[in-house]
């Protein structure tokens, strides 16, 4: 998909690397508590935020992410 | 080649895997065809570039062909072959070829042929064996010596034990490095087996293919038995990308294996740099 085509009706695309034990659990909890949060974040579960290689972040940007979050 | 120039040789046809046969735990034979029928008609020993479009492309020897399909026997060694082994019949593939020189079928006419194969090395040789069987009257005695690590690792068991032994004027000898409880055949390495069987070089051409270490010792054995370099034919394996002698990587000296090979006589190989 070209950048131009992606721009129509653009919504931020966010890749969130979430630690299995912390932020991912937090996301679970947010779900359990029926908390609203934007659907823009696409979560990649990792065993630990220390597992996030800088290259994963770069790859996310390469593939068109507008923002990247590492949550531990 | 005038009309060939208009066809882009680097772009494959889309074909399908129509049948998958388990040969050994890590070798499967794939039947490939396209909607228009057989992708192309190769000569024995020629190669095909097979790809899973989203995984990768690699060169494989064509082990046999039918009226409508090509057969490729593929061992699991890397990413592409792992993915191929996961595939099911019906899977779309890219295929282009045929590449390489193939076996010198004309020059071999009227000669007795000795085939020596080890492991997956039987795959390229099989195309020639089947060709000789089809054109039985053109060739002399066929003698197939084949070995694998274990009985389970023997490729083309139907051919080895059913089809080929029934062919007229054809002999098949099979060995395994190490047998199992059920194995009643010969045990031992291929080179030693060849020496044991002692095939007389007179009027023969030997075609050998297998793992490099086997080839090395088979060649020593052949020399002992009195075979001349011109009497020995082997096929090489190289990393290939374009298949048409352009991309550079499969050169042996000024030859490109994808174009001028993969079939070489030992005499030719000795002229080339030892870089395979």
């Amino acid at each position: 998909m070209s950048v131009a085509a992606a721009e129509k009706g653009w919504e931020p695309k966010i890749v969130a690397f979430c630690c299995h034990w912390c932020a991912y659990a937090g996301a679970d909890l947010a779900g359990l508590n029926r908390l609203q949060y934007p659907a823009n974040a696409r979560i990649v579960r990792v065993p630990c935020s220390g597992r996030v290689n800088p290259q994963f972040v770069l790859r996310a940007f390469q593939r068109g992410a507008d923002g990247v979050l590492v949550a531990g | 080649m005038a009309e060939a120039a208009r066809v882009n040789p680097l772009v494959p046809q889309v074909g399908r895997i129509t049948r998958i046969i388990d040969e050994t735990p890590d070798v499967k034979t794939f039947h490939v065809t396209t909607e228009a029928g057989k992708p192309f008609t190769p000569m024995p020993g020629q190669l095909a570039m097979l790809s899973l479009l989203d995984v990768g492309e690699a060169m494989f020897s064509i082990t046999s062909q039918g009226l409508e399909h090509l057969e490729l026997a593929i061992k699991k060694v890397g990413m592409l072959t792992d993915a191929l082994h996961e595939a099911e019949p019906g899977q779309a593939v890219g295929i282009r070829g045929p590449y390489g020189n193939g076996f010198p079928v004309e020059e071999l006419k009227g000669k007795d042929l000795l085939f020596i194969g080890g492991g997956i090395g039987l795959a390229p040789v099989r195309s020639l064996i089947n060709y000789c069987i089809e054109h039985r009257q053109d060739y002399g005695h066929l003698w197939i010596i084949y070995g694998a690590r274990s009985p389970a690792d023997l490729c083309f068991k139907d051919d080895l034990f059913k089809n080929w032994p029934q062919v007229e004027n054809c002999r098949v000898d099979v060995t395994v490095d190490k047998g199992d409880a059920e194995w009643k055949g010969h045990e031992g390495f291929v080179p030693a087996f060849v020496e044991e069987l002692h095939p007389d070089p007179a009027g023969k051409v030997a075609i050998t293919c297998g793992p490099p270490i086997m080839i090395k010792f088979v060649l020593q054995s052949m020399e002992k038995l009195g075979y001349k370099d011109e009497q020995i034919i082997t096929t090489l394996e190289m990393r290939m990308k374009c298949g048409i002698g352009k991309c550079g990587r499969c050169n042996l000296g000024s030859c490109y294996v994808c174009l001028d090979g993969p079939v070489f006589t030992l005499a030719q190989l000795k002229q080339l740099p030892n870089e395979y």
Partner: protein
Amino acid sequence: MKGIQEQMRARARELLAQGAVQMVIGWEKGTFWYLSPPAFVTDPEDCDRLVWDEFCTNNLAKYLLDYKHTGDRIALFVKGCDARGIVRLLQDNQIDREKVYLIGIKCPGVKDGRQAAALGEARRGEVPLAEKCRYCTHPEPVLYDELLAGDAAAREAAPGEGRFAEVAKVEAMSPDERYAFWTAAYDRCLRCYACRNVCPACNCRECIFDRSQSGWCGKQMQRSENMFFAITRAMHVAGRCIECGECERVCPEGIPIMALNKKIIKDLNELFGEYEAGVDLEKMPPLGQYKLDDPEEFH
């Protein structure tokens, strides 16, 4: 400088003749007056090839990796930055200290061959010091088995400021300007990997950029992948860069690679305290370990 060259040749000859080492790595005269590429001498008779002049720029440390498994003992001439390269390799367990014999040279600073070529041989005296040498903090080798007599006083004491001048310049730009600056530079990148191959911090057996199958980075020479390479390379040498400037020198396209390396050095210094890679064998790079009290930029 003559003195040093003569000492070099004499020591190389002695070491080889005694059999104390099997090879001596130094420099020799290249095709042009402004080139003094690495030289590998194995024969005591051959030691007069060795030269020492202001163009002995190449950092020789990296070559030791080629002889990792040979069992040979190798003598190496080391300038300040070469010695730091050795320390890095030792810290990464890449070489055996016993298998190298280090002959230190107090380095008066080297000069850039390309600048010299532009000036011409007639103006040899005017060739300025190489950029990396202007801010060199360790002109004398930090590690050696013997030190050749001579002095490094030819240059003024290393000025601290200016070391990060280039970095400050880029930092002062807006994000868009910075992006334009780096993409303009890395659009030129040929991905020849000379910067990687010359770097004593790049000592992997097999670089991920040589394993395109592994899926890290494609082989397309285009902006996003060149930038991926640029950032990955920079992160890879983070905390390990010894500021020998070789990456920038060898780059056929003249990409300001050190401006990226130095940025990381600067940041690491700010975050984890001053650290100079390859100076002290005992002090490991800040990113190579973890401490309970490591600062966090997490929020």
